């Protein structure tokens, strides 16, 4: 049995004496006999550290690491600078709790304040929170922010990542908000359809930028249409893309949310990830979760505290706008360090590299017989048809260490390229594709 208990048997006895008991079992005398567990839990015998390490390594080795990844669809394989890993492994950051005691948590609080500033910069909006669970739950929380008594309809573009849509629906279900899908046209939101669906009962419209197919949506047109009918626009954004595309702020969005995983978080089979949220000044006090604000201490020094807590569940209880308290603080720290290491030039370079590689790949795949399905502007993902069965094509690639595009329900493939994909690697991918497609 492994144990992290420092107390020796002798010390326990002494402590029990002082408490006035003779055995630890007596500590549980208040428990009715009927609820006490008879015997032991049916679990394997505890392991030594070496034994546990072996066991966990065995699990890890049952997975297959792909050296070449061309799949995104919500989780992106970006380069993580070494300094990011170094900084976020500092024990203080890893082991601290939520910074309730501001005087001994200024480092953590300041890091969140800096993170909030960076998210405001990326999104072009006025206020950001300290993060939520992931991009999908951020989208759902964003929708909750926009609900008003008479506005119960929630519009979501069909071009949204299906997982995000599903989470929005799950969150809305309990509250009887009606989620309706705005149809797509040639891979992007059908603006005419959107307009026709808008009325005074619509709380908000959620659109993803770039959308699930990698295509750039017309955020400004969406904002105009929605605002015209008094609704709110929520944009779900890829944070890397924000370096080179119009920001939610520039588009006129009310709320911006997104999955922060591209900002230095490893793929990790889907989590922990990072939901970021920002809002215009009007919506600031509706932001869920923790928010850090600047203030002064009793000696006039600048300091930081958790603020606007009056919104939160531990004060408002059932009247709170959200129940969230634990967020993804360490992931937010990762994003901050990542954005600092990249800087404005570096993050722009990342975006440009992603776009450039994806466009190169798209052209080369087209030559190899995989025509693009949509003709619109895209960022670093795109959809192609496949002349052969998609599963067979992907299987052949996997055999060579390539994780190809995601097979969509309609048989098309959703590809992704990032700054990590070299031309050489893409050329190799393309020749493998050619082989399978018999060119």
């Amino acid at each position, binding site marked *: 049995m492994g144990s992290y208990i420092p107390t020796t048997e002798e010390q326990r006895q002494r402590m029990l004496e002082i408490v006035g008991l003779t055995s630890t079992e007596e500590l549980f005398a208040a428990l009715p006999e009927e609820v006490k*567990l008879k015997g032991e839990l049916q679990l394997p015998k505890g*392991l030594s550290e070496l034994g546990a390490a072996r066991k966990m*390594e065995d699990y890890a080795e049952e997975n297959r690491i792909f050296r070449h990844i061309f799949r995104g669809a919500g989780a992106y394989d970006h380069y993580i600078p070494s300094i990011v890993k170094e900084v976020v492994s500092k024990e203080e950051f890893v082991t601290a709790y939520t910074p309730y005691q501001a005087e001994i948590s200024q*480092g953590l609080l300041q890091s969140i304040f800096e993170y909030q500033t960076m998210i405001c910069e990326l999104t072009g909006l006025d206020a950001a929170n300290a993060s939520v*669970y992931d991009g999908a739950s951020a989208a759902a929380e964003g929708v909750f922010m926009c609900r008003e008594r008479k506005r119960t309809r929630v519009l979501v573009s069909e071009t949204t990542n299906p997982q995000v849509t599903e*989470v929005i629906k799950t969150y809305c279900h309990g509250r009887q908000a009606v989620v309706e899908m705005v149809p797509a046209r040639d891979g992007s939101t059908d603006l005419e359809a959107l307009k026709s669906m808008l009325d005074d009962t619509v709380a908000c419209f959620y659109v993803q930028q770039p959308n699930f197919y990698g295509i*750039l949506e017309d955020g400004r047109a969406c904002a105009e249409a929605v605002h015209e009918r008094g609704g709110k626009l929520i944009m779900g954004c890829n944070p890397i893309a924000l370096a080179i595309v119009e920001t939610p702020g520039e588009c006129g969005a009310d709320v911006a949310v997104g999955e922060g995983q591209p900002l230095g978080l490893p793929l990790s089979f889907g989590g922990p990830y990072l939901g970021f949220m920002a809002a215009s000044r009007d919506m600031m006090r509706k932001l869920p979760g923790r928010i850090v604000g600047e203030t002064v201490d009793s000696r006039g020094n600048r300091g930081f505290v958790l603020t606007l807590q009056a919104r939160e569940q531990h004060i408002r209880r059932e009247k*709170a706008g959200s129940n969230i308290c*634990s967020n993804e603080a360490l992931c937010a720290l990762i994003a901050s360090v990542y954005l600092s*290491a990249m800087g404005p030039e570096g993050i722009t370079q990342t975006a440009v590299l992603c776009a450039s590689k994806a466009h190169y790949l798209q052209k080369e795949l087209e030559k190899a017989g995989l025509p693009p399905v949509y003709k619109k502007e895209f960022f670093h993902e795109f959809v192609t048809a496949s002349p052969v069965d998609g599963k067979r094509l992907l299987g052949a690639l996997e055999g060579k260490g390539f994780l190809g595009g995601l097979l969509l329900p309609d048989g098309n493939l959703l590809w992704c390229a990032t700054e990590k994909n070299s031309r050489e690697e893409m050329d190799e991918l393309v020749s493998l594709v050619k082989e399978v497609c018999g060119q």
Partner: protein
Amino acid sequence: MKLIFERSVPGRRCSILPECDVPVIGTGEKPLSAAGRKSPLRLPQVSENDISRHYTALANATHGVNDGSYPLGSCTMKYNPKLNDEMASLPGFTRIHPLQPEETVQGCLHVLHDAERVFCEITGMDAMTFQPAAGAHGEFTGLLLIRAYHESRGDVKRTKIIVPDSAHGTNPASATMAGYQVINIPSTKEGCVDLEALKAAVGEDTAGLMLTNPNTVGLFDKNILEITRIVHESGGLCYYDGANLNAVMGVARPGDMGFDTVHLNLHKTFSTPHGGGGPGSGPVGCKAFLGKFLPGKEIREENGVFYRADYEKSIGMVRAFYGNFLVVVKALCYALTLGAEGIRDAAHMAVLNANYLRVRLSEAYHMAYQETCMHEFVMTLQPEKEELQVSAMDIAKALLDYGIHPPTMYFPLIVHEALMVEPTETESPENLEELISAFMEIHRKAQEDPEWIRSAPHKTEISRLDEVQAARNPKLHYGL
């Protein structure tokens, strides 16, 4: 301390990425879109050295479990074994795309599968989802299960969730998020559920009850079987808030107390680090009859091969993919290390440490309850407040000067001037002794020089902060 933005110098940068080896698109003459970003991107422009020193300074201004005792009630700030973090950082876990083909993620599915078995056994549940990313997220998920259950039976009149007034604030907030009306019921003097009040509250509109046991004052509710029976008889279901599971794991199981669904805080009970407020993990377990409603996918095994299956009537997803997977890896590693014996022993020691502290501190402080406590206990500083105008907050702040993280302040709400203390099982007797002597010295000083305590802390870089100004005139980002 400077902000990272205040260290920024125009043109300074790290050199992370290579030049582009394909035709460049998205910038200059080849903009990606007419609607390109126009506003400047004012991120910090710093060197790697700047970053290293900046975050060193921030880390030095952050108190972690590695800096000293952290007896923050209800948060179970135990020591976080390093092995768990090391295992969660294996490339075989971190470099796995969540949408890889099933045959290439057998290890991940195996982890989720085994974690489900282990944590079901500990809670006495039959099935479990790891999608929820935190405790509150788990509460919400559990309530959606309850909703789905009633709806599946066409029982649409059940619109109310009963919550004791001693509950964590997340409980009523989660109930509201799940579309329920919250019925608060008062606690008894002992902080336990008032059976009469409960009986009065239940009825045909009762969807369920949310409860934590041991409760938020650190006592085990002796009437637990009666409580869950009353709710069940009314047709409602019982939800167990796992925040306090550390006290009873291996000793008693929520499933055996009559609960139908439960969430765990892996980041509390199973010693995965809190990360300054997350990522956590709030898996939700349930009895077999609720299993078909779980969110996400079920992980099944056949002949050593793991695969995903749809739940029959899933409530949908509450998060993308599989939840905070790496946190689950850490918690599983921890549980496998402890085993049945170690898990029970951790509970035993957590409770012994709490009682030892309670008895020793009773010499100077007033305990809100006199009984043997579970893993935590609540003191009331009401007498000191009245006699010396020294509040719970003042005592807490005075502890900062001793390098000790203060207990939880002003919770639960049912105790005035409350300080809730939870030492956890990983603090040694020597550490407890340090804690006790700090508490005692502070109490003595409060008598001798109350103003000194009222103006604490004195040794921290930053003194008490003006929270009112922060909220009244919110400054939520750096004014670039």
